[in-house]
């Protein structure tokens, strides 16, 4: 009699498709996945502990290094939380600039998503094109704050520098070219039948499952649940802008991909409106040189490209935070990995891992 056995396969911590140093322990029956367990912590850098020894201002560069492909959104989230804690009012202009930069960074982050999905699925050229176009956004950021990835642009109380007309031109030009870039990705990847066959109907995550697991961000919206903090808990100046929240239907890999592609054009819409409506005024509020927020506790969330970024800050009235805890969306989203992988093939694991889009800096903190 023929007997089959399951076997263990450890994917990672160094594996081309785990987006860093995630380890996934797969139990396989042939090529079929029986069980999958994510093991993280290979990039645990103890940021929360380090922050306790630094002042509120000095913590800022560390938030850059959490979700390193969308540092602006992390800066934004952190500053928003601290400002709420210290009751600082932000000038209108600074809020607009923040929104513009956060949305640009969201586009850049989603481009990395498209690129890494393409390379995981075997289309190397599909990775190079989004990376090539992402350089345009990085150029804008480089012009703005002199760094390509770790910006520290959004500061407590406002932003670091004003937009020059050259930067406005660069953004306008980028936005004008964006539709043709998206067309190119659509022609190369989205329309490709092999690509569609790989993504459609695989790794289903129902809306109810996603809701119960606390999934947030595009992954939740791909499962058909309309929940976007930019609309459902508007912060900064998002309520001034018209935009829609793209939703998926089935919650399969295809929906997770399409939702993100659509979000790129929605973000572009927001940027366009914000650029047109930048009010005059200050770019920073008056913030004391040494910030000592009142004793208290705050939990504040914003919508990052991967979901709900939350900062829980405990202040004891001194210049250094007593305790900071960060809710990292990728960390929580990874809980869905087993549901996404179970019963599918090894080839689908790779795709599912890509569409969760975890950034290990954020997962491991």
């Amino acid at each position: 009699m023929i007997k089959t056995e399951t076997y263990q396969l450890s994917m990672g911590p160094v594996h081309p498709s785990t987006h860093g140093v995630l380890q996934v322990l797969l139990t396989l029956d042939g090529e079929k996945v029986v069980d999958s367990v994510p093991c993280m912590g290979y990039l645990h850098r103890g940021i929360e502990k380090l922050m306790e020894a630094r002042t509120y201002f000095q913590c800022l560069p560390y938030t850059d290094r959490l979700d390193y492909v969308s540092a602006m959104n992390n800066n934004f989230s952190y500053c928003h939380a601290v400002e709420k804690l210290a009751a600082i009012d932000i000038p209108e202009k600074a809020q607009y600039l923040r929104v513009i930069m956060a949305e640009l960074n969201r586009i850049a982050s989603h481009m990395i998503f498209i690129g890494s999905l393409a390379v995981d699925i075997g289309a190397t050229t599909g990775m190079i094109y989004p990376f090539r176009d992402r350089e345009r956004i990085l150029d804008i950021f480089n012009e703005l704050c002199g760094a390509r990835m770790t910006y520290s642009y959004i500061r407590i109380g406002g932003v670091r520098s004003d937009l020059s007309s050259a930067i406005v031109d660069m953004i306008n030009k980028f936005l004008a070219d964006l539709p043709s870039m998206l067309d190119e990705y659509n022609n190369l990847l989205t329309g490709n039948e092999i690509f569609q066959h790989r993504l459609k109907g695989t790794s289903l995550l129902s809306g109810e499952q996603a809701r119960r697991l606390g999934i947030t961000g595009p992954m939740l919206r791909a499962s058909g649940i309309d929940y976007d903090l930019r609309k459902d808990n508007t912060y900064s100046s998002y309520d001034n802008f018209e935009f829609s929240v793209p939703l998926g239907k089935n919650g399969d890999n295809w929906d997770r991909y399409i939702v993100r592609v659509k979000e790129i054009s929605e973000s572009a819409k927001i940027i366009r409106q914000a650029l047109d409506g930048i009010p005059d005024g200050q770019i920073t509020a008056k913030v004391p040189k040494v910030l000592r927020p009142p004793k208290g506790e705050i939990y504040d969330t914003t919508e990052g490209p991967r979901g709900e970024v939350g900062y829980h800050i405990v202040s004891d009235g001194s210049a250094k935070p007593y305790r900071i805890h960060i809710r990292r969306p990728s960390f929580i989203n990874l809980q869905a990995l087993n549901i996404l992988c179970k019963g599918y093939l090894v080839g689908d694991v790779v795709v599912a891992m890509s569409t969760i889009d975890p950034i290990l800096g954020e997962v491991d903190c």
Partner: protein
Amino acid sequence: MHEGLLVNLTVFLTRIAEFIFGNIFIAQLFIVLLEIVVIFAVISLAVIIQVYMERRICGLIQDRFGPNRVGPFGLLQTVADMIKLMSKEDIVPAKAEKLLWGITPMLLFIPAALVYAVFPFDNGVIFADIGIGIFFVIAVMSQGVLLFLLGGYASENKYSFMGAMRAVAQMLSSEIPIAFSILAIVMMTGSLRMSDIVSAQSGIWFIAVQPLAFIIFIIAMLMETNRTPFDLVEGEAEIIAGPFTEYSGMRWALFFLAEYTNLLAAAILTVTLFLGGWQGPFLPGISWFILKVFAVIFVFMWIRWTFPRTRIDQMMALSWKVLLPLALFNIMATGIGIYIYKWIY
């Protein structure tokens, strides 16, 4: 019919050798050995050119330049890579089946090079114009997979083993559509001999007569040579490097060479079966042959750098549920066509 440039050269060399050795038998043996050396040199050169081509095409498609620093236009890049691979440390994994593991890369080159025996490079330039030429090619080409299996098994690595299993599944699914699509051509020529197939295309190439067979053949050939969209055997993102995961240095280079030798063989086969072989106006046969072969290789590379990878079950479904019925239908249509043709004339 023997009028090609290379044929005359061979005849001339044989005369000289006969004059030197004073014995026709030894002279012919010498010439055969010389021919083997030449064909190996040509294959190696072609492989080096292909690797360079691949990297340049990949670069150009991706809006960048690709290797252009080492030597003029980066032409020496592959040479540098090969020399480096030769100078690397030879690591044998402690848990590998040492004998099997060691001989696999060497054996792999045999089926890859053997098929070249029956390819007509020019008018009359063919090493063995055997009566079962095309059958021989199909039979020998599929031997390569055995060595993939051997290498994957002997490495004692799960990724390698998965790759080996995939290689076997893939070979089984690709061989049958290839055989059936070629059958339609064999029906038209009435011969398995390669030179007959080429000369049957002196009027019209088979790509025009048998477009369906051509498409099936190209898709199945992509499977056979493990290239995207069917590079499941070494799907980087999934199973690291498949059966080659544990191989390093020169041993890995042999796998690499065999892969490109197979690609070249696939291109030659395509040209011979569908694109009229060495035939073409004005230029000598060999230059038409080289031109066509590299055009086909370009198409293969172009496909590789455009498409994503399929999944193993999709690849098998495509092969068994789509390509095979289509190939069978094509055979039937060809049969009817031949019958009608004979009935009219």
